[in-house]
């Protein structure tokens, strides 16, 4: 214990205390560490309730397709129920099916358009409209015919008009442009 000669009285006292504590610990059985679950449960429950609330408050959940940039707007009207139609630079998706491809210039594939009518899109829309109408009839309510157009910032006006024309032919009567709310 040659080293202990150089220690200060405070350090010697600290070592003594440490030794005494270790000796006391040896005599006792080891304590089991317990995790306080109540506070954790509280936090997790609050988060789950908050997330459930925010999920339930949106009648339509919009999940943009890859590469799609939804236009920004100062509009504040909330989205109401309707059939979403996704128009990304790569193509048009309706009912989870990519139906139409867009050229690199942003035009609708010319083989799929005839006099502003987009053939594959019209067929899919007409089928879906029939189903929705029948469902509304069974539930004794009026079919609203609302289309939510989830477009892209770069979408050309000519393509937009063709899509709206096709939707009109498929008996959609109300249109809404889905936008991202600009803050401020």
């Amino acid at each position, binding site marked *: 214990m040659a080293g202990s000669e150089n220690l200060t009285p405070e350090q010697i006292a600290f070592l003594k205390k440490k030794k005494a504590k270790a000796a006391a610990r040896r005599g006792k059985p080891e304590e089991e560490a317990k995790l306080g*679950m109540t506070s*954790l*449960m509280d936090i*997790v*429950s609050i*988060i*789950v309730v908050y*997330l*459930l609330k*925010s*999920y339930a408050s*949106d009648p339509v*959940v*919009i999940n943009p397709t890859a590469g799609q940039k*939804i*236009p*920004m*707007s*100062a*509009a*504040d*009207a*909330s*989205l*109401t129920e309707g059939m979403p139609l996704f128009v990304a630079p790569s193509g048009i998706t309706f009912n989870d099916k990519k139906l139409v491809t867009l050229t690199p210039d942003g035009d609708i594939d010319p083989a799929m358009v005839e006099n*502003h009518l987009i053939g594959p899109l019209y067929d899919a829309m007409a089928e879906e409209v029939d189903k929705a109408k029948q469902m509304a009839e069974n539930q004794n309510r009026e079919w609203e015919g609302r289309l*939510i157009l989830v*477009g*892209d*910032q*770069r*979408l*050309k*006006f*000519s393509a*937009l*008009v063709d899509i*709206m*024309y096709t939707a*009109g032919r498929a008996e959609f*009567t*109300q*249109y*809404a*442009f*889905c*936008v*991202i*709310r600009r803050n401020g």
Partner: protein
Amino acid sequence: MARKKKKEEEAEVEANLLPVMNIMFLLIPALLLAMEIAAMASINVSPPKFAASANQKKTDKKEEKPLDLKVFIMEDGYRVSASGQQEGADAGKSADSNRPTIPLANSSADLEDYTRYDYAALEAKAKEYKSLFPNDVTVKISAEANIPMQVVVSSMDALAGTTCKIGKTIKSGEQPPDDCYFWQPIVEAGAG
């Protein structure tokens, strides 16, 4: 003996919270994935044939001449016309396709640069027309083929008024606020 039994009965039974916690922790990422990150809104657009009902047209004729505001978005600016007369057209002409009513704010900017249009001037023009026709809320919007959707949407914002908060008003059926000008856009194809 009776005391011992009572003590045993009173011994605390701890609930096993681990399965509940497992479910809760799984619910969090599932709900986070389903949640929308950006706040979505909608702009209600009318197709031309649903713009105004026959009855409305009749009453409009009796009360006042309709404004019939039209905005045509061109690559070099906006062409604004009201009651069939383009603003800024040559004398005696109803339209002058060579000159826009509102030129670009930044003419050197690319077509993909959405700030090239003078939205502030368009909003000022909408405010001017609104003061003359306070009951009019519709505007017909058309554009050249290459105009991007963001420009169309931003133009709709300018025509409605950038400070216009119409969402709650539409729901409750109240009168729209004074800072809302032409908030019911009608999209028209190729109308100049």
